[in-house]
């Protein structure tokens, strides 16, 4: 298993080196990704310029959700750089190559490209999150630190799982990208705000069926000591790691079934 991880690391490094071949382009796109994402946060600031609370949450508290969501989503997005390209990989028939090598298909697709420019986008989420940590009122206890750590790891894992599961649609239909994006990028936007501002059906679908509530909202209720206007059981605030493992397992299963459905192309 160790040697297999070594192979994936080698494959990933070869992609990173390939991007560094074009240094100026790399630097410009790195800065571009940072600025583009920073503009997004400006939108949140504009909202708070007019109101000081959003459904009972202050600006630093919303920034806590926004920052953790953006930070971990961009991290997942970086790991899944090539997953975005899966519809093209399948349509062009280049997935054939993946299937002829003695390695797992998922690992190969993930290491097929690693775009470090996403670090620019990640930095923005990270800065907002650090700002929030500096401004929210948290009574720090070892438990809260542990929940914070597990929240971030689980958030990244849940996003990764959603990327894999949703992009698996590409094996079934050629028009997969829009559907996949509405749940991946759409899902991230959903976790930037407190869950209770959304309607009940939206909460059920995006919050629990696609368990985005576990990305940051539920553990944040505990960390920030907020009440839950939707009256969910308190235990849910601690279940993010369990949900994350479940999401990864389901995503892996969907992927495996979908790969068997691969049709390749003519010739």
């Amino acid at each position, binding site marked *: 298993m160790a*040697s297999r991880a070594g192979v994936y690391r080698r494959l990933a490094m070869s992609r990173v080196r*390939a991007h560094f071949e074009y240094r100026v382009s790399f630097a410009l796109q790195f800065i571009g990704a940072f600025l583009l994402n920073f503009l997004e946060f400006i939108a949140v600031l504009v909202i708070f310029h007019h109101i000081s609370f959003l459904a009972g949450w202050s600006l630093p508290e919303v920034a806590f959700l926004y920052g953790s969501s953006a930070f971990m989503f961009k991290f997942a997005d970086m790991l899944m750089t090539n997953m975005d390209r899966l519809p093209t990989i399948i349509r062009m*028939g280049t997935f054939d190559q993946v*299937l002829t*090598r*003695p*390695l*797992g298909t998922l690992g190969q697709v993930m290491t097929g490209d690693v775009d470090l420019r996403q670090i620019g986008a990640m930095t923005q989420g990270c800065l907002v999150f650090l700002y929030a940590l500096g401004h929210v009122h948290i009574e720090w206890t070892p438990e809260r630190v542990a929940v914070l750590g597990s929240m971030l790891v689980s958030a990244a894992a849940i996003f990764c799982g959603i990327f894999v599961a949703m992009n698996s649609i590409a094996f079934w239909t050629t028009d997969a990208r829009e559907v996949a994006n509405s749940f991946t990028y759409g899902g991230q936007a959903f976790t930037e705000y407190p869950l209770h501002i959304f309607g009940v059906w939206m909460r059920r679908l995006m919050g629990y069926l696609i368990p985005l509530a576990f990305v940051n909202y539920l553990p944040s209720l505990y960390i920030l000591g907020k009440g839950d206007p939707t009256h969910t059981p308190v235990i849910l605030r601690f279940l993010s790691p369990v949900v994350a493992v479940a999401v990864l397992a389901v995503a892996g299963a969907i992927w495996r079934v979908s790969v068997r459905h691969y049709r*390749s192309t003519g*010739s």
Partner: protein
Amino acid sequence: MNAPGGFGGAPRVVELRDIRKTFNVYRRRGRIRRERSQVDAVAGISFTIERGEMVGYVGPNGAGKSTTVKMLTGILVPSSGFVRVLDFEPTRQRVDLARRIGVVFGQRTQLWWDLPLRDSFELLRHIYRIPPDVYDRNLAEFGEVLDLEPFIDTPVRQLSLGQRMRGDLAAALLHAPEILFLDEPTIGLDVVAKARIREFLARINQERRTTILLTTHDMDDIERLCKRMLVIDHGRVIYDGDLATVKARYGADSVLVVDLEEPAPPIEVDGATVERVDGPRQWLRFRREQMSAAALIAAVAAKASVRDLAISDPDIEDVVRRIYGSA
């Protein structure tokens, strides 16, 4: 079938029994409604290949050649039927099988576009966990035979098609696979590059006893490389046998082209038929086993004065055309 006593393993390395692959095809009907129909890309194919064989797999576009190769290499899941390659079920045991076979698709490279050939080989060494001695030996041998040295440090995207194909072949063989699947390996190459690749394949097949299945449009590939030919059309095998037999059975006709001193009506000779007349030139079709070329020429010369002549023997493309025609 006479098994040639396998080298370290069952003599039968590929076995297909009644394999089918059906694709759903959607056709638009009106704005939203779509009509689903099913197309058999492969409609019940059976054959076996024994260790050390070099088999040519021939058929027109869309006949199901690539689909068959993809089912043998674990890329496509068959709709029904039985497949075993080296005793593995290709899609279920894909990773184990991948270690022991090599695959080359002429239309697209297996290499990394942005890496020099040498770096691609190095990555493959790790992916296939090739022992260092095997790797060094193979790289040295292929480097020499395929003359990779001049461009081994060039990024793959800058290679010519012929160079890239040589690189692809070496890449597919570095891990010393027992079977090599080639899909159109000479497509788009010039005569010199084709000859070099054929020479290399013949050598690998003879010296290493690597079993080779080769799909191609190029009948020269088959004629120069393969003793056995499988012809497929509309998803079915319509001929499976050796090359000499197929020629004798389907197309032993030779053609004598004569240029006469002046235009004449078709020359009547027993055992030959005039196929075409164009001014003073006539084409006479005959079978060598019924009549020698010398006898025919003498007979023609007795009836008209001949200025020039040429004989063309049947090539494999004629033969295949006839097989399609009779199927």
